[in-house]
């Protein structure tokens, strides 16, 4: 599903450049649930941004579902993001003047799905995250866990190939974190490919594979026994 070969990325900081990713080789099959771990500065967010086409790579190749991702125009990148990827952010990033249902429907709007169908789909996904009764609520009327569940519904609404989660539990207490992870696991059980960036051990162990990043290279890549989050909920 995802294939990265010899990926390099550096940022220019004034006169000297900061080499963040120093040759990453990495492959994700369909249906995997991968945790990307590492301390801050290890390059995990940069990796996720490149995977999410929010940032461009300097060197190497990136293939997503057989499509090479390189030198995309903004318009093309927007199209691919919409079609291939769903984002889940640490700070939820819901649009605060739109109701939960409207937030979920947003990616479908960009796909020019008709209004009625959009609403139906949005409600369907809200139901899947257990928030159908809150469909008309604004984000400000929801708790942190609920917001993240709306964000997950939004990420799934466009039926993307890959879900990218950047510290999805970073802003939540441990109980809600487990609820969110439970949801992510269930979505994965349905066959969706999910990448989770985290620095929390327990969250990482709820995935099926852990990739350790340190100073811009992969130091460890192992399959783990998945801990089901449901038992903590």
């Amino acid at each position: 599903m995802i294939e990265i070969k010899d990926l390099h990325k550096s940022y220019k900081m004034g006169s000297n450049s900061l080499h963040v990713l120093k040759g990453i080789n990495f492959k994700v099959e369909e249906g995997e649930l991968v945790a990307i771990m590492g301390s801050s500065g290890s390059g995990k967010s940069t990796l996720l941004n490149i995977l999410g086409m929010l940032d461009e790579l300097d060197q190497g190749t990136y293939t997503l579902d057989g499509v090479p991702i390189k030198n995309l125009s903004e318009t093309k990148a927007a199209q691919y993001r919409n079609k291939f990827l769903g984002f889940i952010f640490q700070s939820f990033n819901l649009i605060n003047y739109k109701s939960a249902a409207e937030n979920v429907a947003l990616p479908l709007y960009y796909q020019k799905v008709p209004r009625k169908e959009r609403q139906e789909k949005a409600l369907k996904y809200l139901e899947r995250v257990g928030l159908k009764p809150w469909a008309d609520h604004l984000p400000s009327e929801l708790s942190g866990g609920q917001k993240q569940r709306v964000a997950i519904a939004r990420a799934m609404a466009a039926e993307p190939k890959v879900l990218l989660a950047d510290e999805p539990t970073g802003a939540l207490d441990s109980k809600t974190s487990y609820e969110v992870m439970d949801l992510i696991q269930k979505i994965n059980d349905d066959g969706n490919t999910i990448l989770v960036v985290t620095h929390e051990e327990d969250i990482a162990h709820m995935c099926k594979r852990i990739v350790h990043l340190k100073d811009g290279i992969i130091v460890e890549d192992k399959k783990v026994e998945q801990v089901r989050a449901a038992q903590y909920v």
Partner: protein
Amino acid sequence: MFNKDRWREIIEVLTTNVWRTVFTAFGVCWGIFILIVLLAAGKGLENGIKQDFGNIATNTMFMWTRSTTKGYQGLPKGRSFEFKIDDVAALRDNVPNLRFISPRNQLGGFGGNNNVVRGIRTGAYNVYGDYPEIINQDPMAVTAGRFLNYNDIKEKRKVAIIGQGVKNDLYDKGEDALGTYIKIQGVNFMVIGTYKKNNSGGGEEGQKEIFVPFTSFSQAFNRGEDVGWMAITANDGSSISQLKDKIVDVMKKRHKVHPEDTRAVGYFDLYEQYNRVESLFGALKAVAYIVGIMVLLSGIIGVSNIMLIVVKERTKEIGIRRALGEQPWSIKKQILMESIFLTLISGMVGIIFGSLVIFGINSLLDSVGPVDMFMSPSVSVGVVTGALVILMVSGLLAGFIPAQSAIRVRPIEALRTE
């Protein structure tokens, strides 16, 4: 374009900070208000001045004779001469595109002695010997009876059309003037009509004129073939100002006047005067547009400013939306539409207020009666449409820089701002 979600979003954005929107809108509103009111005031002045011209055919010149200032073909300088009735036919033959040529003779004049008598009443009036065409060049409304016609000319009938003012002087109130006789310098004329002039140009004096057939006038008052002066109107397509040199040349040739004698034939070009006034109004309109658009410009800059702030405030939102796959063009369109919408709505409010003020001034003018040189200020539908187009374009311009800066936001940077 007419997308429900997009419009909801526009309304949403503009109403989140209502007072800011209102104050921004005020700038544009004020600009267009000033533009409309200035244009209306200019139009009012124009209407007022043009009223003074009345509906006189403006493409007209008047021509009369003076004494020569150069000797020619053995004739001395200082010789006086008169136009003759044949000159009219000569002008017709030699100068194309003339619509009316009216030879005229006149009795009386400013400060003249009493020259008209009816019973025991007398009065001093201008008495004109005229052809029927004069009513097209010096319009008047015939209030009773009829105006002169060619049978009057041919048969040299001693008939007269008198002004409302003359009737008031010589007749009792409610008395019927038609069929009665008045004595003009000892010659009896039958009154066949009364007229009223509605332009203020002639004023009181304009109502105190008497028109009699040219031929009867010549015979009754011993003018022979002489013509006192002429009123000449050109066809609508051509201007009398361009024809006048030719007309004067024809006259000089017929009366043996030196071709370079510029003073022998006197004339007054009404069209030139009228054009001068026209170009004054053109300049006035230009000034109104410049001032109005300048004021509008500062309003537009305000809109542009606010849109920049809106984009800044929504940086994160724009980042999210781009991460979710919104096309850059769609974001740009959104910002542009917000800007145009804001400009257009506030502009329309300005137009409405401007129209209300104009309406107020009009009803004030109606209630106090006519004011000198100012009449029914108004703006045409064309001007309003023009203003709307200006607004549309300026909204587009105002939104352009903010929209550009909105799509320059890279989603990753937008999302990083916490």
